[in-house]
């Protein structure tokens, strides 16, 4: 790569108040996230610096709250991740684009015509009402996704909505929301999808994947697919539970729990398991990578994990402050599993109690009733003349 490219990026970073040292440290954290050694840092830095010339990227917004864009853009304080993403020739991004209307759509169209771009998709795929639950520039959201997905080299589905519909597909799901990968599988489009759940997505992961896919060539080599689990999630990000890496895990094992908020236990930083923490069944590396430029993350800041990195996370995680999810029982409504168990156990106890009264009344408690001298079946057969 040409030396001038370095100068360009470092000038750009300096203009945003990011030193060369900050930038290299950041590349180091990406290397760590990707499971690469420190020796890859210069390569990543060089790749990022040259990134803009490699592949264009398009960012589409489906049915969602735009929180993932917020998470990454952090408009009030641009950080290294933002700048790196700026450099990635994001030719079209609905929320942040300066261009509007026809101009913006034309920019997107220009990208779609040249195969090989990266499609970053945020938000759910809303299929309801023939896709008319979402309309962009005169066409439906699902038409736009299919059109954009056809020629893409890879799709990065950012945030739980893009992965499986996220909170948009929570019961009763009137928009018939689903994720990018399930939708494309349904319509037979085979473009590889990298899924990055959580609500919102962590910018570090997006940058790591973009660097890996776009710049380090793992897409061309096919290596990216080996790094994904069955749900298309990178294993190095979504391979372990929050619980297993949690800084409060020691308190869990010791049996030190927060029983309610606003107590001394909470001030002591005890485990949030009893107030509904979903860390034990949520597979993300939040405790390691953390959020907001590695400042903190949910559990560290005192909130139980609500499991936003799980599939179908609202339905399997709500109520967020309970240990168990609710069961949507027909004609009863949302019920905690323990309540159902208690009712069944109570009915059984009542049944046994009543039965015991019956046993007492019929005098069977002392040895039971006298035995029959032959089976009913045999007696009937004998009556019919069948003999025994």
């Amino acid at each position: 790569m040409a030396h001038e490219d370095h100068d360009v990026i470092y000038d750009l970073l300096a203009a945003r108040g990011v030193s060369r040292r900050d930038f290299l440290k950041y590349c180091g954290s990406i290397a760590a996230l990707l499971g690469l050694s420190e020796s890859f840092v210069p390569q990543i830095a060089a790749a990022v610096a040259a990134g803009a010339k490699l592949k264009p990227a398009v960012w589409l917004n489906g049915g969602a709250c735009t929180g993932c864009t917020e998470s990454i853009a952090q408009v009030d304080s641009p950080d290294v991740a933002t700048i790196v993403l700026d450099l990635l020739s994001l030719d079209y991004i609905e929320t942040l684009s300066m261009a509007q209307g026809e101009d913006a759509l034309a920019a997107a169209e220009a990208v779609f015509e040249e195969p090989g771009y990266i499609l970053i998709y945020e938000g759910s795929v809303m299929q309801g009402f023939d896709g008319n639950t979402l309309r962009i520039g005169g066409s439906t959201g699902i038409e736009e996704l299919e059109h954009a997905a056809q020629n893409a080299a890879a799709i990065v589905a950012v945030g739980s909505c893009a992965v499986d519909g996220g909170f948009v597909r929570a019961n009763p799901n009137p928009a018939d929301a689903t994720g990018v990968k399930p939708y494309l599988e349904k319509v037979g489009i085979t473009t590889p999808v990298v899924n990055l759940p959580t609500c919102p997505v962590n910018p570090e992961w997006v940058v790591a994947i973009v660097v890996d896919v776009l710049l380090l060539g793992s897409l061309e080599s096919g290596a990216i697919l080996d790094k994904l689990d069955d749900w298309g999630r990178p294993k190095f990000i979504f391979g372990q539970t929050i619980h297993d890496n949690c800084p409060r895990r020691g308190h869990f094992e010791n049996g030190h729990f927060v029983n309610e908020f606003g107590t001394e236990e909470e001030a002591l930083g005890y485990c949030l398991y009893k107030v509904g923490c979903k860390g034990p069944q949520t597979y993300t590396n939040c405790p390691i990578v953390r959020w907001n430029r590695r400042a903190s993350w949910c559990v560290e800041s005192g909130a139980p994990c609500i499991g936003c990195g799980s599939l179908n996370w609202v339905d399997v995680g709500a109520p967020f402050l309970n240990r168990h999810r609710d069961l949507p029982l027909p004609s009863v409504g949302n019920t905690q599993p323990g309540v159902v168990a208690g009712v069944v156990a109570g009915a059984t106890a009542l049944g046994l109690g009543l039965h015991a009264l019956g046993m007492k009344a019929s005098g069977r408690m002392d040895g039971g009733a006298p035995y029959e001298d032959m089976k009913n079946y045999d007696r009937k057969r004998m009556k019919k003349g069948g003999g025994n």
Partner: protein
Amino acid sequence: MSHPAHYREAHPLIFVFTHWINLIAIVALAFSGFYIHYPFFGGFMGVARGMHFFFMYVLLINLAVRIVATFFVKSATRLGTREVDTDIKNWLPQKLNRHQFIPWLKYYLFLKKDHPIGAKYGVLQKISYLFTIPLTLAAAYTGFSIYAPFMDASFFAAGTDWVGGPMNMRIIHYYIMWAFILFTAIHAYLANVEGIAPSRLIFAWKEEEGVQFDAEGKIVGGAGHY
């Protein structure tokens, strides 16, 4: 009063032990499982998890021993007899069990006055005892599926995906515990409601005289020749 005789041949000593081990393991598992589900007092989580992981292996090994033993140990062929045969034959439906499902159901529901003839066990009894085997295996499968050292193995992860994630798997595991609790309650009730001789035999291996039966289920002796 027509209580059948309770002889040691009904429960050979090895089954007295396996029954004790089952009882202790299930109580320990249910208690520690409840605690892990919701720690109702402080300072015990590490111990509760250790208990749970220890006794789950105890229960599984005990089940394996019990199943192997059924092919080698001889036990009484029916109530009130010292006549023995290989235990498995007394587990599977026996001649005396035939056509007796409805009569047993009627007897339990007070729709039949006299006691139905049973073999080693009654029909409902055999079904419910045999049901504890898949129930134990289901508890093991769902438990391993949410147990960190095993849950990523594809054999378990595939099941977790199929039921809709680890939370659902956790709830199924929780309900299996309730199934054990209900089974144990009903089992203890039915075994002892007509007298505690069955408990004295299975726990303390103490015999009690009573009605004796022949191979056709006819009363041939014992207390008062009922």
